[in-house]
């Protein structure tokens, strides 16, 4: 568990302000993901990364951007926070087994609870 950390763990901010969440991993995993968790919706993928400087959009990417300048860190930025972005944000990492069939398992960080007033 200690291999994936998120900062901050809690944040309260105001509508219209930019917010950056950080995910840090020591697992040397290639893939990293940002999800948001909301009641009734489960986890929804925001953005993901398949390598340094390689990122792509998930299903709920509007209003979010990401950057990955090194393997260990994956940043999620809310460009102008809105109340609808109040949520719990989870980072995850993943690696394929290298076998013919990949396990596709993902490992999760502890989450960041973000409140936008």
């Amino acid at each position, binding site marked *: *568990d200690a291999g994936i950390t998120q900062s901050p763990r809690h944040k309260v901010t105001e509508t219209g302000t930019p917010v950056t969440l950080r995910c840090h991993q020591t697992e040397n995993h*290639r*893939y990293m*993901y940002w*999800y948001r968790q909301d009641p*009734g*919706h*489960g*986890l*929804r*993928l925001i953005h*993901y990364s*398949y390598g340094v400087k*390689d990122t*792509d959009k*998930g299903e709920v990417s509007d209003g979010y951007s990401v950057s990955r300048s090194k393997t260990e860190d994956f940043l999620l930025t809310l460009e102008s926070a809105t109340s609808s972005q109040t949520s719990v944000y*989870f980072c*995850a990492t*993943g690696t*394929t087994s290298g076998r013919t*069939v*990949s*396990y*596709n*398992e*993902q*490992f*999760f*960080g*502890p*989450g960041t609870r973000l409140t936008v007033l």
Partner: protein
Amino acid sequence: AQRVTQPEKLLSVFKGAPVELKCNYSYSGSPELFWYVQYSRQRLQLLLRHISRESIKGFTADLNKGETSFHLKKPFAQEEDSAMYYCALSGIKETSGSRLTFGEGTQLTVNP
């Protein structure tokens, strides 16, 4: 498109009773299915994956391709099983990595 449906948002059973958490999926290819569990105020952790046919903490899940289901079962529920359970599907095998699609989750409460 891939989709995962967990029809029960809440499930309550008594200790020692059997429990089944339902999961149905929609995917045109050969999926990989997972169950993740989130105990109160903790991070999600992998419980089961169909490909390894494991039994973890007494839970089992069988992939039924005919019914497109991956229900999670345990014959005798324990109070420590109370948690949120997510079914997830991975169906993309492109080089950009496998993306998990999660269901909405089922909150299981095991009463004493």
